[in-house]
């Protein structure tokens, strides 16, 4: 591959390219708290636990690579149930994929914030809670991602 010499022409080309985008910007910013992206169908977000489907096989806790999932055994009870620690969870989704009864499932919620570390611990009872994206709860405009030949990604209202 031969390299051409550069000079004034290339200077002008570079400036022209800059001006081109100055006139016709190709922005990809999403104004997050006011707008939020609806994530793809497969998104691996916060995990939802279905109490009734669980058979206490403890496979999820055994495969968890981050030691986030633990089986909580109550005194006197025979069955142990999974609880999760979101301080450790890396959202690899192994637990969901190995669950033989589909008791664990992904939600598409990812934008959760905590004020307290204790809150990030989800024992089995809390683990069953339904997830709602805080931004959506606040009434954020939902956008979907569309691939575009001219602009790469375009965010269109859903």
């Amino acid at each position: 591959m031969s390299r051409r010499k550069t000079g004034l022409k290339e200077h002008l080309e570079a400036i022209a390219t800059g001006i081109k985008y100055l006139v016709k910007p190709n922005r990809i910013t999403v104004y997050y708290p006011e707008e939020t992206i609806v994530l793809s169908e497969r998104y691996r977000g916060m995990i939802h636990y279905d109490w009734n489907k669980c058979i206490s096989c403890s496979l999820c806790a055994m495969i968890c690579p981050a030691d986030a999932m633990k089986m909580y055994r109550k005194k006197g009870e025979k069955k142990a149930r999974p609880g999760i620690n979101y301080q450790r969870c890396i959202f690899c989704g192994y637990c969901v994929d190995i669950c033989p009864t589909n008791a664990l499932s992904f939600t598409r919620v990812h934008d959760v914030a905590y004020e307290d570390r204790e809150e990030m611990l989800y024992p089995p009872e809390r683990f069953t809670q339904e997830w709602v994206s805080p931004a959506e709860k606040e009434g954020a405009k939902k956008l979907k991602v569309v691939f575009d030949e001219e602009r790469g990604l375009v965010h269109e209202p859903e």
Partner: protein
Amino acid sequence: MGVVGMLIRIALSPQFFGPIVFPGLLTVLVVLLSIIWVERKIAARVQMRVGPLYVLKPLGGAIQMLADGLRFFFQEFIIPESTDKLVFVAAPIVAMAFAILPFAFIPVAPKFIPYSVPYSMPVFLGLNTVIPLTILAMAWGSNNKFSIQGGIREAYMTMAYEAVLFIAAYAMALLYGTLDFAEMVDAQGIPGIILNPFSAAAFFVAMIMSAGKLPFDIVEGEQEIVAGPFTEYSGIAFGLTMGIGYVQLYGFTLAFTLMYLSGWNPVPAQLYSIYPALGGIMLFVKAYLLLMFIVFLRSVYGRYRLDQALRIGWRKLFPLSIIAVFFSILLRVIGIV
């Protein structure tokens, strides 16, 4: 009445209005606050982003720099133990003073000149040459490796642009037969940039070098030497050091407009009749557009290497400015001007 009238007369006199209101201190402040915002907005537009937004959202975050400035004000100004304290504190203040002082010699409109001296052009350039010295003082006073590296770079850069700046400007002086900005404007039937493009090109690049804007922000060299001479500064002093380059650049764009872009012409007669300084509106608009173009270059270029900048200064711009001198002489001999 007498006292108030006298105060108004003083306030509206060119000697006061020029340095303090326009184009001096107050305008400098406004330009400083707005141009950094403009720079960030332009860069953001080119770079697929939005830029500052949430401070006064209806205007696209236009007062972002005011917020930043306030933050600098109330941030602690740390003076490190190992610094030369007097130099460390004084240098940015002196630098800012010398960046604003040249505005006293910039004519604003016909017959509206703060300090009328027949040598306003060399005085303007001369005052600007003090700033590199203050930056050297900052670097030396900081007593920090990065600062000293930056200081030495500043010293080298001064070598690269200063001669070019003066020779290119003198080429125009030669062309117009005067060293006074105001007379230069009057002499420009055809704008200077068309009469002597060589001089304009050399002056333009040299003034970007002088203000340390991209592609010549070698002194700050963030990727190698953190912030160069300004590494140790914090709080309001850091705000000052950040502003110096922009103030200098604003001064230079005014000078460039006066020398090459036929200054305040055409003068809007109606505004001029209300108050003469308003006749300088065209001067300001031209200078500001030029300023916007220079800050736009930030989104096109990276940074040159120190020796490359020196090479550009001595091997390209210096001969160009010499050519400009001979070209001016040629034009005079032929009798075009």
